[in-house]
C-alpha cells in the first residue's frame, strides 16, 4: 500500500473518480498543465486532457457559477479555488444558487459540485492565503462543509464528496498538505459525510477539532485522558457522536484557527449547551484564533492556537469536578 501525503492522496482520489465516472470534470485556475499551485491536480491534465481538466480565467464567481451550470446539466464538476481567501467573490453563487437549487426547483435540479480549496494558516504565505472561513459556509443550509485531517481521510472524504448529490465545500488544510504521510490504499473507499470520528477515546475531556488543528490537539492532549474527536464534516455535523462523548466526559474543549467570534466553535458550544448542558462539569472552552485580522507571516504563529494554549484549556476544564 503506498505511503502518501495529502497532496498525493487527493490527487489519487481525483484520478480514480475521473476514471470511474465520465461525468467528473475538474476546473479552476492553473489546474491544468501547471497541476494547481499546490500540485493537487498534477498529471491529470496529461491523463485526461483539456476536455476534463479545464484551466479557467481568473474568475472565482465565474468558476462557481459555471460549475453550477455544469452540475444542473448533469456533470459532477470539481472546482478548485486557489486559496480560500479568494472564495468570497463566489459567495453569492454558492449561497444563492448552489445551496438553493434543489430547494428552489423542489428537487428537479440538483447541484452536485465540489469546491475544493486550501485553507488555514501556518504556511507563511501572503495576506488572504491563510483564511479559515469555514463557519460562513456552515451557516448556509444546502451546502456541506468537509475538512480532512490526514491523507487517508482526505482521499475517502473527497470520493464521498464527489459522489454526494449536494454541493460540498471541501477545505484542505494547506499546512498538512505535505506534513504527514500515511498508508493510503489505491482503489475505492469512502468515508461517509456527516460523521465524526473518535481519534482517541478518553473519559475526562472531549476535545473537538478538525483540519490542521487536530495534529496540535493530539500533541497537546494525546497523553491525557481526552476523547479527541475529528469532526471531518462540519455541516451538517455529527451531533450524535459529539453529544455521546460530552455526556460521558462532561468537559469540552473546542479548537479552531478561525477568529473566535462566530467561528464554528460557537455552534458546537451552543449545541452542547442546549442539549447536553446538564451533563457538563465545567465551562466549555474554545481555543481559537483571535478577533483580529489574521496577521502576516511574522506574527501568524501567535495567532494560531498552539499546543500550549490547548494544554492550558484542557487543564482548565479538568479543574472542575
Amino acid at each position, binding site marked *: 500500500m503506498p505511503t502518501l501525503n495529502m497532496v498525493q492522496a487527493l490527487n489519487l482520489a481525483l484520478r480514480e473518480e475521473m476514471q470511474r465516472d465520465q461525468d467528473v*470534470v475538474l476546473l479552476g485556475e492553473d489546474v491544468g498543465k501547471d497541476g494547481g499551485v499546490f500540485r493537487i491536480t498534477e498529471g491529470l491534465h496529461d491523463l485526461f486532457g483539456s*476536455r476534463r481538466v*479545464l484551466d*479557467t*480565467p481568473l*474568475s472565482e*464567481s*465565474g468558476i*462557481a*457559477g*459555471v*460549475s*453550477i*451550470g*455544469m*452540475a*444542473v*446539466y*448533469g*456533470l459532477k*464538476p470539481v472546482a478548485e479555488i486557489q486559496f480560500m481567501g479568494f472564495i468570497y*467573490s463566489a459567495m*453569492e*453563487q454558492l449561497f*444563492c*444558487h448552489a445551496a438553493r*437549487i*434543489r*430547494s*428552489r*426547483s*423542489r*428537487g*428537479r*435540479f*440538483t447541484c452536485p459540485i465540489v469546491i475544493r480549496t486550501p485553507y488555514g494558516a501556518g504556511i507563511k504565505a501572503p495576506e488572504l492565503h491563510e483564511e479559515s472561513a469555514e463557519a460562513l459556509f456552515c451557516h448556509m*443550509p*444546502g451546502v*456541506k462543509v468537509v475538512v480532512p485531517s490526514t491523507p487517508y481521510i482526505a482521499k475517502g472524504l473527497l470520493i464521498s464528496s464527489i459522489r*454526494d*448529490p*449536494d454541493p460540498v465545500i471541501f477545505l484542505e488544510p494547506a499546512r498538512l498538505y505535505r506534513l504527514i504521510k500515511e498508508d493510503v490504499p489505491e482503489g475505492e473507499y469512502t468515508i461517509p459525510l*456527516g460523521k465524526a470520528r473518535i481519534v482517541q477515546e478518553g473519559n475526562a475531556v472531549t476535545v473537538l477539532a478538525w483540519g490542521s488543528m487536530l495534529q496540535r490537539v493530539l500533541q497537546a492532549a494525546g497523553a491525557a485522558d481526552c476523547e479527541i474527536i475529528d469532526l471531518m464534516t462540519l455541516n*451538517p455535523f*455529527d*451531533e*450524535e457522536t459529539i453529544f455521546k462523548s460530552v455526556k460521558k466526559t462532561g468537559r469540552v474543549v473546542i479548537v479552531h484557527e478561525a477568529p473566535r467570534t462566530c467561528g464554528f466553535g460557537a455552534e458546537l458550544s451552543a449545541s452542547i449547551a442546549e442539549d447536553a448542558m446538564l451533563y457538563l462539569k465545567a465551562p466549555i472552552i474554545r481555543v481559537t484564533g483571535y478577533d483580529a485580522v489574521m496577521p502576516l507571516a511574522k506574527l501568524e504563529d501567535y495567532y494560531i492556537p498552539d499546543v500550549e494554549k490547548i494544554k492550558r484549556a484542557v487543564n482548565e476544564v479538568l479543574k472542575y469536578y
Partner: protein
Amino acid sequence: MPEKIIESFNIKRLEVLDEKGDADASLMPPLSDDEIKKMYELLILSRTFDRYALNLQREGRLGTYASILGQEASQIGSAFAVENTDWIFPSFREMGVYLTAGFPPYKLFQYWSGDERGITPPDNLNIFPVCVPVGTQIPHATGAAMAAVYRGDKTAVLAYFGDGGTSKGDFHEGLNIAGVFRLPVIFICQNNQWAISVPRERQTASKTLAQKAMAYGFEGLQVDGNDIFAVYKATRDALKKARQGEGPTLIECFTYRMSDHTTADDATRYRSMEEVEQWKQKDPALRLKLFLEKKGLWTEAYQKKIEEESKTIIEDAVKKEEAIQPPQPKDMFTYTYEKLSQRQSRQIKDF
C-alpha cells in the same frame, strides 16, 4: 507606423418589421403563416397572463409581480427559435419566455403566489426556475453550455437578463468564460431602458449594450426588441452559429418596460409619461397585428377568438392554482439536501 489601428468593430442593429407592420422581405426569416399566427397568439396569451397577474396582485391573491408589458416580442421572438432540447436560464421578468416554452400558466401563478412548487419545470422542459439576484444566472448558462459540449449534445443555451444585469460582475465573468471556450450560448439582453429607476444611460456609458460583446471576443448585435421577426431572426441565426461550434452571441433587444418595475414600484416617481406614450407607438402586438392584417391573416373575429381562448386558458389556470392545497410546513426541509440531516430530523418534528 507607430500609432496604428490594431482592431476595428462595427455594431449592427437589425430591424425587420416596422411600426406600420411592413416587413423587410430581404431580412424576413422563414416562418410559415401558421407559425406567425402562433407567435401572435403567444403574444396575446402572455399579455393576458400579465393583465390577470397584475389584477390578482391588486386583489391580494398574488405576491409582488413583475410585468412583461411591452417586452413580449423580445421574449416570444427569442424563445420561439429554441428547440425543446435547448436550455433556458431566465431572469424574473420572463413570463413570455416560460409560456412560449410551454410552462403551465397555473404553475406560474402558483410561483408568484409564494409557493416554490410553482416554478418546478415539467420534466420535458429545460427551463430553469426564476433567478432573483440579477445577472447571477448568466454563468449557469455558460456552465450548461460547457456541459452540453462536453457531452457532445447539439444543445444550445439561452440566458435572459436586463440592461441592469449587464452591470453585474457575473455578466462579465459568464460572458468571458463563454468566449474563451467558444460555447453554444446566446445571451439575450432585454434592454427595456430602465433598471427600476435607473435609466439605461446611467447604467453604463457605452452607447449600446451589444458592444459589450467586443470585450469577450464574440459577436454582439442590437435588434429592435419590439419587432418579433428581428428578435426571432437574430436568435435563430445565433442558435445556428452556436450549434455549428462558432461560439456565443450577445443580442441586445432594444425594448421598453411599459409598466412599473413591479407591483411594488411606482414609475411615475422617476420617469415621464411622455416617454411611455412614445413607446406605445412601438407596441410589439400592434405591429404584428398590422402585419397579419396586411397579409390577410387577421380579422376582428380571429382577434376575438384568440383573446377569448387566452382568457379561458388563464382563467382556468387561476382556478386550478387557487384550488391547490397550500404547501405543508414540513416541505421547508425536504429539499435542503437529498436527505434530512440529524438536526433537521429533529427540527421537522415541530410540525
